[in-house]
Structure formats: structure tokens, C-alpha cells
């Protein structure tokens, strides 16, 4: 957790540093905003990093702030929770790759069903929800909103356009 926290802060520093460096190479009109923003952000990130280090050294436990954003709850930072999140990321990656390879109309309902079955939902309910998603995609988006949902690279290769 601590390493991940510092990686994030350093990544933000690198990002703004890059923006500053690239911005300075641009004409004045184009550089104004990125340089202005990066010039303020860079020292602030250093302050944030210093605050994090100091907090860690003093072993101050941060309380979750319920008034801010969507606060992290204690149940979300357990080993079990991270394992579930990791599983979700794998499924999410498969969903996005599947949409590219198999097309939206095939991959999305299919992966919805897989997710439900993996979470021990009954077969009939999983199939019903999968069909529901297919109906929303087809009738709601493709027909209703006239949105041409792509067919996927693999299905196009196998079955033609």
C-alpha cells in the first residue's frame, strides 16, 4: 500500500514535469496553460509527498473521511477485498479485450453471464441477465440510438463483414 501510494505521487510529479518540459517547447499561445498549471502543481506535489512521508514516519493512521469523495471503507482494504478487486480487474480486462475481438453484441452479454456464473448465481438468472444486456445493446443502442456497434476483429476475420 505504502509503495503504491508513493508510486502514484511520483507518477503525478513525472506527468506534470513532462507537461512543463514539453510545454516550454511549444509556441507561447499553446504553452500558456500547460506551463501555468504545471508550475503550480509541481511544488504542490512535493508538499504532498513530504506530508505523506511525515505521516508515515509519525505512523499517523488516516481516518476515512466520509464527507469527501467516495471514502474508502475498512472492508475495502482487507486482503480478501483486494483479491476480489484483482479478480474483477481480470474480468474487466477480458470484457474490454472481448469487445474488441468478438464484438460488443457477442462479448458483453457473454462476459456478463461468465461473471454471474463465477459468482455462483443460478444459471437461469445469469442467462436471463445476459439476454437482457443483449436486448439493451441491440434494441436500445443499435436500433434505438442508431449506434453501429462494432463486430470485433476476430468475428470479422472468421465470418467476413
Amino acid at each position: 500500500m505504502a509503495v503504491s501510494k508513493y508510486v502514484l505521487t511520483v507518477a503525478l510529479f513525472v506527468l506534470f514535469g513532462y507537461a512543463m518540459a514539453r510545454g516550454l517547447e511549444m509556441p507561447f499561445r499553446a504553452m500558456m496553460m500547460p506551463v501555468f498549471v504545471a508550475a503550480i502543481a509541481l511544488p504542490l506535489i512535493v508538499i504532498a509527498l513530504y506530508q505523506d512521508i511525515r505521516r508515515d514516519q509519525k505512523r499517523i493512521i488516516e481516518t476515512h473521511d466520509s464527507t469527501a469523495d467516495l471514502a474508502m471503507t475498512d472492508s475495502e482494504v482487507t486482503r480478501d477485498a483486494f483479491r476480489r478487486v484483482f479478480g474483477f480487474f481480470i474480468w474487466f480486462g477480458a470484457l474490454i479485450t472481448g469487445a474488441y475481438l468478438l464484438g460488443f453484441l457477442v462479448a458483453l452479454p457473454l462476459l456478463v453471464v461468465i461473471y454471474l456464473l463465477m459468482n455462483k448465481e443460478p444459471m437461469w438468472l445469469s442467462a436471463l441477465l445476459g439476454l437482457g444486456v443483449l436486448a439493451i445493446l441491440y434494441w436500445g443502442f443499435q436500433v434505438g440510438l442508431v449506434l453501429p456497434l462494432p463486430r470485433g476483429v476476430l468475428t470479422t476475420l472468421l465470418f467476413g463483414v
Partner: protein
Amino acid sequence: MDDIWPAVVSGLVSILQPSAFMYMMLGIVISSTLVALPGIGSKTAIALLLPVAFTLEKFEAICLIVSVWAVSNTANSITSILFAVPGGSGSQATILDGYPMARNGEAARALAAAFTASALGGVFGAMVLALSLPILKPLVIMLGPPEFFVLILFGIAMVSTLSGKNKVKGLVIGLLGLLLATVGVHLVSGIPRFTFGSLALMEGLSLIPVTIGLFAIPELIALVASGSSISKMELNNLDSGRRQGIKDPFIHWWLVIRSSLVGVWVGMIPGLGSSVADWFAYGHARATEKGAEETFGTGDVRGVIAVDAATNAKEGGSLIPTLAFGIPGSSTLALVFGGLLIVGVKPGKDILTTNLDVTFSFIWLLIIASVITSVLCIIFIKPLAKATQIRPSLLVPVICALSVVGAFASSNSYYDVLIMAFFGVAGYWLRLHGWPRPPLLLGLVLGPEAERHLWTSYQLYDWEFIFRPITGSLLLLLMAILAWPTVKKFFRKKRAESGVAHGGQ
């Protein structure tokens, strides 16, 4: 003043057109249902509906977007009252008296009172917004690009500092939003900025995939991580007491007005959201109502009424800086603002002068949508309460699939799905380490306007624009607000040290 009455009528007629009215009803139903579902907030609801809005006529899109947002604080009282689980940031204080009422067998009364107070609060907020227009109009015309530039910075800084405990992190994320807004071809010079040679990034980052990624995906991850549904409680006592609940806010009408005023005031200040409005209103009611010290917290309906009136009145208040100065006071409103920009409605001078009918359509929407939502929520208490018990394992894959299509639909590009996925992971990472996400959205939405005003100000006045009276005063005020907590902490520490020194002697 002469142009106001035709605009009032025109605004009402526009949203009462059958197709526009139908989209308002659709927005109300979807918003109330999605907000009632566990873990799905109003931002997710709006983000998922924005691709639909882009295909509509102007007033149809306004009806859909604004109604989804305007009523998002109504249905979230259900989980607070029935299960003591806040349905949203604005319904935390509802638990204090709503849940004890439910346990005392008065769940239906508490819910009906909350919904009725929400409607009254929403109407009150809209009225204040309408009354403020004659004052705002000359004020907005007086301001130029330098003032608007500083006002945008002011808005982002306020939201940044108020959306988390760590103000520095909030500011950095707000600035990150402004930086991300510069991605793409610079409209004035034609130079590609931070595109890494990718054609997909030439047009910049689309609002929809970023929003879905930043808010919907982390919320779904939170559902996955928590791994359980809200409650397996039996839904009893949802029939008797509704009538009394509807009457309660009218009996305590003076409390409704005062709480609504608190809500409007909180809404007008960028950064102070529903989570502040509900506690302020609850605190106010507890301090001023007769016998509240003894009864509040044990199931007093006045505690529920005060909170729900305030959180809904807040929406009218928050539209004042949004419509007048183009500064949305929260990330949800930033999303609404971004959606309106895309459908061709530009808050600021235009909307208060040449497009005044659009402003009044917002006001009418707040009034009509608030009332209709409350009536529907009262009628459909049971199905909505049941919706709160849906298992996350059923919701997550379906919402995720819709998120993928929603991201794709914004510009018919698979790159937007990848952008959504990237911001989904980034959003979760930011949330994990306490970096607030709302300022990023605000920066992204306001970035192009900020850059335009910065450039125009520079062209008109060189760098001296920062010394113009209003601009300079706003900058000083901004710095004072940002520095105040540190200064206060410093003096408190000094005082404590001197106290110890005196004690030692």
C-alpha cells in the same frame, strides 16, 4: 425585466412539449432507480445517460440531463431510513432520525415525509434561483475575461480544497484536470499537445469515457470489494403512515423554509456539497426546534424533514454560480455542465441574456421534476425499497457492460473504451490513496474555458490583468482561503507552545 416573462413562458412550453416531457420522465425514473441501487451514484447515472442525450434535440437533452441530476437526492433517503446505510453523500444525516423511525414502525411515514420535504425543498431552491436572476444579470455583464478566468480558478480551488481532508492533493488533482483539458489540437495555434502522435487524442479527451472511468468503475470496484448487499432485512411497515408523512412537512412548514434556505446557501458556495448541506440543516433544526435536544436522534420526523428539504433546495442554489458564472460547484454539476456544453447550451452571459428561456426551462424542470419524483417515490416505496436489496454481483457486470457501450457511444470509437478503462484504474488508484477525484472532472470541464479566458485576458491587458480590481480581489480572497487553515494551525501551535512554556514556569 420586460424580457423575463416571455422567457418564463417559453421555458415552460419547451419542457412541456410531449417528447421533452417524456425524456424528463425517463430521467426521473432512471435516476430514482439507479440512485436507489446500492453503490450507484448520480454521477454514474448521468455519465451512462449522456451518450443518449447527445442524440436528442436541445430541450429534450436538457430535460434528460437536468432531471437526472435534479432528483438524485430524493430516492437516496430510502437506504438511509430503512437500513441506516447512506444512499448518497446527502443522506447521511437522514439516518439519525429516519432509521429510528423505521425501527419504531414508522418507516412509511419517514419516507413519505422525506420525499415530500424533498419536493418542497426543490421548489424552494428553484424559486430562489428565479428570484436571483434579475440581480445576477447585470453582475455577469459587468465581468470580463480576466474575472471569469479567476472565477474558474476560484471554483476549482474551492472544490479541490473541500473534497477531501488533504487540500494539497485536491489542488493537484484540480490542476491535473486543467492539464488533461489541454490534450489535443490547440484550437488557436493548431498545435497538437500531449497527443503522442495518436490520432484518437487529437480531438482531446472526451468527457464521457473519462467520467465513466473515473466515477462509475471505482464505484463498481467498491461494490466488488465490499462483497455484500446492503441488507437482508425484511421490508415491513411500508404501508401505514404515508398520509401522516405527507402532512408532516406542511405542519412544520417554517422548518422546511429555514432548512431550504440553509440548503440554498450551501449550494451557492462551490465545493460545499450535499454532505455539508444535510449536516448543516440537521444541526440548525436541532439547535432551533422546540424540544429537539431530547427527541432528535430517537426518531423525530423534523430531523428527516430538515435534511431532505435542505439537500434538494441546494440544487437550485448550486445552479446560481453555474448558470451565471459558468462555475459548477460540484463534480456532478460539472458533469451536467459538460453535457449541456456538448448539446450547445453554454452557461454564463449567453444563458442570462439571449437564451433566458433555457434558464427558465431549468427552473421549471427543478420544480416539476422535484414534485413528480416525490409523488412517484411515495407511490412506489415498496419496489424502490426492494431495489436497494439487489445483490452487487448482479449489478456489477450489467453496469460494467453498459459503461463500455456508453464510453464507445460518445464518439463511436474503441479508443474511448480504452480511455474509460485507463481512467477506471486511475480512479481506483486515486481513491485508494485519498486523492479526491471530483476536482479532476471540474478541471477537465472548465479547462477549455479557462484557457480561452486566460489568452483573451493576456491579449487585452498583458499580465496586468491580475491587478484589475475585481480580479485582484478575487485572487487575494482565493489565497486567503487557501492559506487560512495553515495560518490557523500555525497560531494554534504557537499558542499551545506558549501555554506549555507558561505552565512550565
